[in-house]
């Protein structure tokens, strides 16, 4: 799978904006676990210590926000692109 990351998280991927994870993930939980394993510094930025996805972090599988697709149980199709972005904000 392909994971696209915002600038602030790239310190933890060696500066890469996009990383490839070789993983037969079928759910968001499995995909994120594989991402943490490959890039451990991402975990605490994306989820809190209770394992909850931070309120203002959005994770898309292809074009679907996983919050609308069952959260951690959201399905991950073969060859999916995962995009992690902070919510928009102003001020």
């Amino acid at each position, binding site marked *: 799978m392909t994971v696209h990351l915002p600038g602030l998280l790239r310190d933890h991927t060696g500066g890469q904006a996009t990383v490839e994870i070789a993983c037969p993930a079928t759910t968001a939980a499995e995909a994120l676990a594989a991402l943490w394993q490959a890039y451990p*510094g991402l975990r*605490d930025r994306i989820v809190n*210590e*209770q394992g909850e996805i931070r309120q203002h972090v959005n994770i898309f599988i292809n074009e679907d926000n996983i919050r609308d697709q069952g959260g951690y149980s959201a399905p991950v199709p073969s060859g999916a692109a995962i995009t992690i972005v902070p919510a928009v*904000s102003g001020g």
Partner: protein
Amino acid sequence: MEPKLFVDPSISKVILLVGTIKGAFLISSDANREKWQVSGPHFPGRVVYAMAYDNRAGRQRLWASSTHFAFGPMLHSSDDFGRTWTNPESAPIKFPESAGQSVAQIWQIVPGGPLEHEKLYCGVEPAALFESKDAGSTWSLVQGLFDHPHRPRWEPGGGGLCLHTIVVNPANPQSLLVAISTGGVYRTDDGGQTWSARNSGVTAGFMPNSYPEFGQCVHKVARSAQPDRLYLQNHGGLFRSDDGGDHWQDIANGVPSDFGFPMVAHPRDPDTAYVFPLETEMRVSPHGELLVYRTRDAGASWQPLGTGFPEELSYETVLRDGMAADTLDLAGLYLGTRSGKVYGSADEGDTWRQIADGLPAVTCVKTAVL
């Protein structure tokens, strides 16, 4: 003007560690404290509520907390005066999963006393205390306070339910005092195993019982040079304790308002302390007049200090960590405002000058003396 990104310690004697809602700045000067150099921003776009300097055991280490609105809180340190900062893979300050809580903000970073060179403390929101016994390499929740039976009854103040004040006792490493909004003051005398509310005499005007055991909205506590003497700025009320917090007495004698956030004790004179009174409704300097108040007699009286502040209307707010003293002789005093101004005095508050302007809203000002 292009600011520098780090401090040159070879030409600096005092560094102000200035946290803002959009990053941190290091503002440095020589011992004269007349000309200041601003460096930063560090952690641009992130809220910096807490900063500290640890010069124990030969270290020259800056600490800062940052919180990104999406990616959460993080703790950083720098051993080269801001040229580089740590950015740990794993968040150093986090609750164990069993606690059922997650850190929203790191409100306070405080090195332990001179008898415990490797100890550091962090206060967080939701209200809890963390400690490090290895100079900040690893951290753990202070379970004794987290398990206190009062904790479920603490209520969030306007800034959230936070442990915002940590006061070490230089004479006794087993004794530590914290303040929580709103929970009040708690003290341990056994190194954090057990804690007792220490709010006797401190008011809670927003409660049916104005003198509850706990639940006060204490804004700041400062320890004077005499370890058992503490000064307290309350959500309404100024107080002093001469017995380490066992009892508090009202010392709001001659201030235009007993509301405010910061409380700063003089580094050597236990009778001298500083407050920044705020009008209670707008929470700004009363009558638009920027004034610090100083006591030289342990709170029996307070005198306004305004020489050098703007003469035009200044509806300013200084938050609880927005005022600090250095340890030079004469002591320097500094404050940062929510309008992004930093003022300093090199003569214990007698005269002031503007050090910086145009910063984001200032959340904290701490000092490092090299």
